């Protein structure tokens, strides 16, 4: 059995992630232009939504990545609270700003898609409201994490928020499909893998954009964790220097 704790050691993480970041970064930089070209120039307009369907290629992957980011944040927070894993809090903290950005993109592009399609920028229905709450949960997590002088206390309080807020992930996912809630939002088109309700001329650009968003998430998650580890070393270095200064001062 693989010993995950061995790989989650900060030194091991720095060593293993070092060659990974440029590879995933290169994939991100390659997939975005391909996806954008297919989305803006190759994919056809929809018979009902006309050209506005092109907003789908930035909106839908952002929604998927927002849910994935929150799931990761809640999972890392649970691992940190239960097993007190040294890297889990750092990973949860690093995924939060990325997830908040994806959620904000989802909200803004959704609003810009809603106006020409539904005739309104916003409705307080189940899907839209739960995504807005998801955004507030990301922001709340980040604010709470930095609100305490003792970082461990902040991480614990924010971790609890992340775990409790995880209830919104299935609510968002199923708010238009299973739950009988009033909504203007359309149902799932892609997740029905046996017979997706989307033509392959639109499916390919959507999948490539989703892959680009996923590579972006991985790249900046790794980069964020590396930065947090370096920042922790910096704090430890400053603490050591300060302690040495105090010792020298007292010996003199």
């Amino acid at each position: 059995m693989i010993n995950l704790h061995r790989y989650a050691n900060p030194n091991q993480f720095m060593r293993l992630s070092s060659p990974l970041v440029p590879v995933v970064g290169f994939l991100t930089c390659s997939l975005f232009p391909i996806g954008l070209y297919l989305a803006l120039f190759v994919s056809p307009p929809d018979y009902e939504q006309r050209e506005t369907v092109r907003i789908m290629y930035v909106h839908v992957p952002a929604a998927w990545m927002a849910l994935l980011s929150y799931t990761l944040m809640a999972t890392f927070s649970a691992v940190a609270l239960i097993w007190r894993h040294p890297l889990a809090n750092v990973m949860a903290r690093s995924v939060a700003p990325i997830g908040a950005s994806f959620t904000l993109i989802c909200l803004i592009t959704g609003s810009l898609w809603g106006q020409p399609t539904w005739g309104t920028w916003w409705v307080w229905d189940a899907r839209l409201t739960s995504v807005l709450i998801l955004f507030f949960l990301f922001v709340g997590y980040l604010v709470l994490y930095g609100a305490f002088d003792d970082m461990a206390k902040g991480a614990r309080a924010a971790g609890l928020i992340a775990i409790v807020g995880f209830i919104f992930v299935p609510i968002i996912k199923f708010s238009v499909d299973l739950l009988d809630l009033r909504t203007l939002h359309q149902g799932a088109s892609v997740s029905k893998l046996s017979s997706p309700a989307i033509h392959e001329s639109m499916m390919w650009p959507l999948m490539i954009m989703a892959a680009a968003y996923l590579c972006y998430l991985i790249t900046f998650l790794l980069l964020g964790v590396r930065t947090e580890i370096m920042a922790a070393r910096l704090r430890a270095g400053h603490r050591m220097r300060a302690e040495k200064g105090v010792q020298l001062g007292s010996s003199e």
Partner: protein
Amino acid sequence: MEALNEYLWMGGDGIFIWSAYSAAAILLGGLALVMLVGKRSVEKRLELLGDKHSQTRKEAGAHDGP
């Protein structure tokens, strides 16, 4: 030129489509920039701390010497 204008107009929906793509680009680009600048800043400070540390050790060595 007319073809380009027509393409950007997108049948009257261009304002919504280009605004959505711009918002996504600004947010993803902005976050990437902030994270890269933050990483570079921490790396620089860590290098500086390392330099100071080795300087302190050299000075301590000079004091300990004969």
